[in-house]
């Protein structure tokens, strides 16, 4: 009964690794963040980070196989008087494991196709951590605090 952020996720999605489902999942994320009080820009950013992370699992983890499982777990904390809204998303797979040092995008000053996903994820989220799951697969934990009113852009939040 005494739920905390450490317990069961508030929303957990298990999906097959089919890129055609990415649109649905990022719209889920955008809808949830919008309702807990993230501004429009932050909603788009979180949706983008989740999309990039899922695309990486499908592309690199599962070598584009589209029938493997991916789990997206979401914890939400709405804004209250003291603090802005807060989101945690964990993405898990059963794919091959990689060392954190191999999780690097390309040099941003050398434009060539690819190598941007991780940069985008690290840029838009507050915390980004990859760990190995036991016995197999990777786990990506990402968090973001909604910017407080005085930090965010002047445009009002709009329905997604």
């Amino acid at each position, binding site marked *: 009964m005494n739920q905390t952020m450490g317990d069961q996720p508030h929303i957990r999605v298990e999906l*097959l690794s*089919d*890129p*055609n489902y*990415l*649109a649905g999942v*990022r719209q889920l994320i955008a809808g949830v963040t919008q309702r807990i009080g993230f501004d429009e*820009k932050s909603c*788009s950013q979180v949706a*983008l980070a989740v*999309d*990039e992370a899922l*695309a990486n699992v*499908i*592309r690199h983890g599962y*070598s*584009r*196989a*589209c*029938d493997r499982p991916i789990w997206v777990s979401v914890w939400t904390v709405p804004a209250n008087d003291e603090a802005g809204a807060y989101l945690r998303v964990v993405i898990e797979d059963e794919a091959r494991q990689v060392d954190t040092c191999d999780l690097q995008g390309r040099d*941003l*000053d050398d*434009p*060539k*196709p*690819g190598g*941007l*996903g991780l*940069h*985008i994820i690290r*840029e*838009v989220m507050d915390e980004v951590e990859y760990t190995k799951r036991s016995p197999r697969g990777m786990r990506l934990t990402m968090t973001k605090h909604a910017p407080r009113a005085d930090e965010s852009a002047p445009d009002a939040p709009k329905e997604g």
Partner: protein
Amino acid sequence: MNRHRTLRKKGEFQMQDAALPVRIDSLDGVTVLVPRGDIDMSRAPSFREHVRRAINAGAPKVVIDLSEVEYMDSSGLATLVEAMRNAKQASVALMLCGLHQKVLAIFEIARLHQFFKIEATVEDAIAAS
């Protein structure tokens, strides 16, 4: 009956790419591509094919009008970076226009807003040299 049944590679179900609707206009000898909808991993291959064909078709200038694209991820960016390279090699002037604020934000994170020739409107892009 089921997309997940499509067998493409031994022992694995491979994805089926989704088609991205792209309108193709020709204005003053310039080819204008107007993709419509999100450009993500599932649609980037279709987008890539459209852009590749436009660049190889012989027009001196190709404009990609992104005004009907409200979402693009790094798959879309990768497609555009590759297109820019191909265009240079084929001596085709490649320009982008109509970027939504959200899409421009992704170009900026990837530090690609300087790499591309970006104009506000199709007219600007056609007029630009």
